[in-house]
C-alpha cells in the first residue's frame, strides 16, 4: 500500500468496482468453452431402434439419431427433412422428392428404397414393431427412382406428411439392418441424423457424437451424453451443480429454484396435447350431458393452474389443443361457474349418485393432487365425488376392458398437430376412448379425416367443438408446459412434443 496516493487508491477501487459491474460472477457462467452437451432425463433408454418404442425417453434420442422425411420444428410447422418437397399428385397419392447426397452414419447412401423398407417395416407383422398402427392409411409404397417415393393411401389422407414427421417415420438403413439383424441394429444403431452412436451403458448413460457430414449442418457440440437420473430432486441438483447442461421433466415446483440460481434457468414449450378427465359416458349419471356440463362448470381451472402448476399451463377452451390446426382462439377458456353448475345438476335431476375419479399417482404430473382439488370443488357444488387410486398396470387393464367407474386422467398427445391425430384418434368410433357416440359428431369426424379440403375440415371441427362442449366426452382441465432446466449458456428452443431435437437451427452454446 505504501507509495500509493489516496487518489490512486480511490480510482483503483473504482476501476475494480467497474470491472465487477461489467463482469459479475454469474455472467462468466453465461458462456462456456464446453464441446460436450450432457442431458439428464427421468428414465433410461430402452431402444435405439426407433420402430420399437414410443416412450419419451427413447424418442429424445431417436429423433436425433435418425431423420424423418418431414420435420416438425418448434414453431409447430412442417419443414423438409429427408424429403425436400412433397405433393398430392392424386386424391390418394402423395409423391415425395428426396434430398440428394445424404449418407447414413456408416457411409451407405440414402435412397428411396430405404424409405420404402422403413415405412413398410413399421406395419410388417414379422418385424413386430411397436408403431404398427401409425401408417394404417397406406396401401402401398413405390420407389420409381432413387430420389422419389410414392405413397398410395387407401382413402385420401391429408395428414400423411404430418404422420411421417412423428414416431414410426424415422428412416432406418435398409442394407445395414438386413445384414446385421434387428438385435445388432438396436445395439449399434445407424441413421442419417445429426448425432451418431458411440456407446451405451444401461441405466447410466448413452454417449453419442456429432455427425460431421450432417446435411443440416454439424451441430454446435462434439458429443452428446444422455444420462438417466430418475428422481427429480437429484436431477435438479445435478443441474444446479453444473454436472449436466440440461434436464428434462422439470416439475413446476422446482422451477423457482432453477431460476433463482444465477447460472441456470427454466425453459418450456406448451405441451402438444391436453390433460383431461376422460369420461365413461355409459355409466349413470355420466350419460346425462347436463351432469357433465355441471362437472366442467364446477372446476376452477385458474386456481389449479396457479396453485398446483405455479402458472405453468393454460386453461383449454375445447378438445383442440392450442398450437394445433383448427384451434379456435376466439373461443373463451372453459368457464368456472359454481352457481350455474348447481343449476344444471338440478335440471338433470341429479340425486347425489356417486361420481368416481380413478387416479394414478404420477402417471401424469399432478394427477392425484388435481383429483383431490377437483373432488373438493365438485363437493362444493353438490356432487358426491370420490377419488380412488389406481396402479399403472390396473389403469392399462381398465383402458383395454373399458371398465372405468367414472372419470380417469388421460394426457392425449397431439401426434400430428391436428385434431385428427388428437381427439378423433382417441374418441372416434372404435378408438381407445370410445364411450360415447353422437351421429353428427361421428359423421363430421370421419369426413374431416378423409378430406384434403382444409376449409371443409375447419368447418367440421368448428361444429364438432359445439357438440363436444354440450356433451363433454372429456372434461379438459389444463394444457401444461413441458419444462426443462438448462444452463444459461445453452441456447435451445424445445419442441412441444418431447422430441428434444438438437439441430443447428435451434441449438447452440453461448461461447466467450
Amino acid at each position, binding site marked *: 500500500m505504501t507509495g500509493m496516493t489516496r487518489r490512486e487508491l480511490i480510482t483503483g477501487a473504482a476501476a475494480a468496482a467497474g470491472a465487477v459491474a461489467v463482469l459479475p460472477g454469474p455472467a462468466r457462467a453465461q458462456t462456456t468453452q464446453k464441446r460436450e452437451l450432457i442431458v*439428464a432425463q427421468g*428414465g*433410461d433408454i*430402452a431402444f435405439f431402434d426407433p420402430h*420399437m418404442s*414410443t416412450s419419451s425417453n427413447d424418442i429424445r434420442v431417436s429423433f436425433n439419431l435418425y431423420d424423418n422425411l418431414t420435420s416438425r420444428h418448434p414453431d409447430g410447422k412442417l419443414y423438409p427433412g429427408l424429403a425436400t418437397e412433397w405433393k398430392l399428385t392424386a386424391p390418394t397419392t402423395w409423391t415425395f422428392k428426396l434430398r440428394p447426397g445424404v449418407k447414413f452414419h456408416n457411409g451407405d447412401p440414402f435412397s428411396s428404397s430405404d424409405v420404402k423398407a422403413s415405412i413398410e417395416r413399421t406395419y410388417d*407383422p414379422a418385424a*413386430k414393431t*411397436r*408403431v*404398427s*398402427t401409425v401408417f394404417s392409411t397406406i396401401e402401398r409404397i413405390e420407389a420409381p427412382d432413387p430420389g422419389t417415393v410414392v405413397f398410395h393411401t387407401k382413402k385420401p389422407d391429408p395428414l400423411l406428411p404430418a404422420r411421417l414427421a412423428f414416431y414410426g417415420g424415422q428412416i432406418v438403413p435398409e442394407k445395414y439392418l438386413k445384414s446385421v439383424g434387428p*438385435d445388432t441394429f*438396436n445395439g449399434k444403431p445407424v441413421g442419417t441424423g445429426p448425432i451418431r452412436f458411440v456407446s451405451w*451403458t*444401461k*441405466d*447410466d*448413460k448413452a454417449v453419442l457424437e456429432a455427425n460431421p457430414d450432417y446435411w443440416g449442418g454439424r451441430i454446435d457440440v462434439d458429443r452428446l451424453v444422455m*444420462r*438417466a*437420473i*430418475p*428422481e427429480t*430432486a*437429484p436431477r435438479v*441438483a*445435478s443441474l*444446479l*451443480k453444473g*454436472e449436466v447442461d440440461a434436464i428434462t421433466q422439470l416439475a413446476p415446483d422446482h422451477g423457482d429454484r432453477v431460476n433463482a440460481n444465477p447460472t441456470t434457468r427454466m425453459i418450456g414449450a406448451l405441451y402438444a396435447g391436453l390433460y383431461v378427465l376422460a369420461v365413461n359416458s355409459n355409466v349413470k349419471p355420466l350419460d346425462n350431458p347436463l351432469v357433465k356440463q355441471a362437472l366442467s362448470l364446477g372446476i376452477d381451472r385458474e386456481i389449479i393452474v396457479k396453485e398446483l402448476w405455479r402458472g405453468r399451463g393454460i386453461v383449454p377452451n375445447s378438445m383442440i389443443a392450442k398450437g394445433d390446426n383448427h384451434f379456435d382462439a376466439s373461443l373463451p377458456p372453459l368457464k368456472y361457474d359454481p352457481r350455474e353448475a348447481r343449476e344444471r345438476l338440478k335440471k338433470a335431476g341429479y340425486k347425489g349418485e356417486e361420481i368416481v375419479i380413478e387416479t394414478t399417482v404420477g402417471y401424469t404430473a399432478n394427477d392425484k393432487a388435481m383429483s383431490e382439488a377437483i373432488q373438493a370443488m365438485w363437493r362444493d357444488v353438490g356432487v358426491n365425488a370420490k377419488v380412488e387410486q389406481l*396402479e*399403472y*398396470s*390396473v389403469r*392399462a*387393464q381398465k*383402458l*383395454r376392458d373399458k371398465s372405468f367407474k367414472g372419470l380417469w386422467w388421460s394426457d392425449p398427445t397431439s401426434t400430428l398437430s391436428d385434431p385428427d391425430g388428437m381427439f378423433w*384418434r*382417441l374418441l372416434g368410433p372404435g*378408438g*381407445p376412448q370410445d364411450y360415447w357416440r353422437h351421429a353428427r359428431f361421428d359423421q363430421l369426424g370421419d369426413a374431416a379425416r378423409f378430406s384434403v379440403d382444409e376449409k371443409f375440415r375447419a368447418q367440421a371441427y368448428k361444429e364438432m367443438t359445439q357438440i363436444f362442449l354440450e356433451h363433454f366426452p372429456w372434461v379438459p382441465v389444463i394444457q401444461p408446459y413441458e419444462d426443462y432446466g438448462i444452463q444459461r449458456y445453452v441456447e435451445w428452443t424445445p419442441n412441444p412434443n418431447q422430441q428434444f431435437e438438437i439441430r443447428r437451427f435451434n441449438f447452440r452454446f453461448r461461447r466467450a
Partner: protein
Amino acid sequence: MRDVALYAGRRVLRAGVALWLVSTVVFVVMRLSGDPVPLLLPPDAPRSEIFRVRAELGLDRPLPVQYVTFLGNVARGDFGRSIHFKTPAMTVVLDYLPATIELGLTAFVVAVLVAVPIGVVSAAHRNSPLDHAAMAVALVGQSAPTFFLGILFILLVSLKAGLLPTGGRGDWHYLVLPALTLSVFAMAYVARLTRSAVLEILRTDYVRTARAKGLSETLVVAKHTLKNAAVPIVTITGLQFGALLGGAVVTETVFAWPGMGRLAIQSIYNRDYPVVQCVVFISAALFVVINFAVDMLYGVLDPRIRAR
C-alpha cells in the same frame, strides 16, 4: 470331518428348497398383478395385436403349463427373454449385477469397519458420555429414511460444499455418497448389536476370571470377549450384507446408480416377468449363499454348532 459334510449337505438342501419357493412365489405374484401386454402397446392398438403379442410371449397358455415350462427353464439357468429389452433376461440382469455388488460390498465394508469398533468401545465404556453419544447417533442413523439421507447428502456435500458428484457411476468419487447412504442403516444396526453382544460376554464368569487373574482390560476385550461375541455379530452382519445387496432400490434411485434394484422397479412397472423373476432369483441366491457362508463360519467360530 463327516460331521462337517453332513452339516454342509443339510444346508445345501435347505438352500435349494428356499430358491424353489422363492421362484414359485414370484411366478404366482407376477401373474396375479396383471397383464404386461397393454403396457407394451400403444393405447390404440387393436385387439388382434394384443392377442398376437400375448401368444408371442407364451402368455396365452394355461398357468400350470407356463409354470412347468418356467421351472424347467430356471433349472437350466434360462429365465426367458425380457419382454421390454427383447434380450435374454439373465443377460439383462447380469449387466446390472456388478454395479450392485460394487455398491453393496463397499457399503458393507464401510458399515462393518465403522460399526464394530464403535460397538466394542461403547460396550467397554458402558454408560460413559462416549457410549451415550455413539448410541444416540446410531439411533438416529437407524431411524433416518434412506431417501431423506441421500437427498441431504446431495444437497450438503455435493451442492453446498461442491465436493462429490450428485449421482451416476464412475470412479471412486461417485461411490462415496451412495455407499455412505446405503451403509448408515446397517452401520447403526451392527453397532448397537455389537455393543449388546459384547456387553453380554463381559458379564460372564470367564471374563470375571480373566480380570481376576489380573489381565489388562484391553486384553480381556480383545482376547476373551471378541471371539465369543463373534457368533451373533457374524449373523447380523451376514444378514445385513444380504439386505445391502438386495435392498438398495432407494439409494440406487436417488443416486442414479445403475444397479439391480432400479432394474427390478422398472421391470415391475413394465410387467417384465422374466426380468423380475430373474432379479428376485439372483437376489435370493445371493442371500442364500451369504447365509450358507455365515452358517459355515459358525462352525469355524464355535465347534459346538458343528456337533449339533
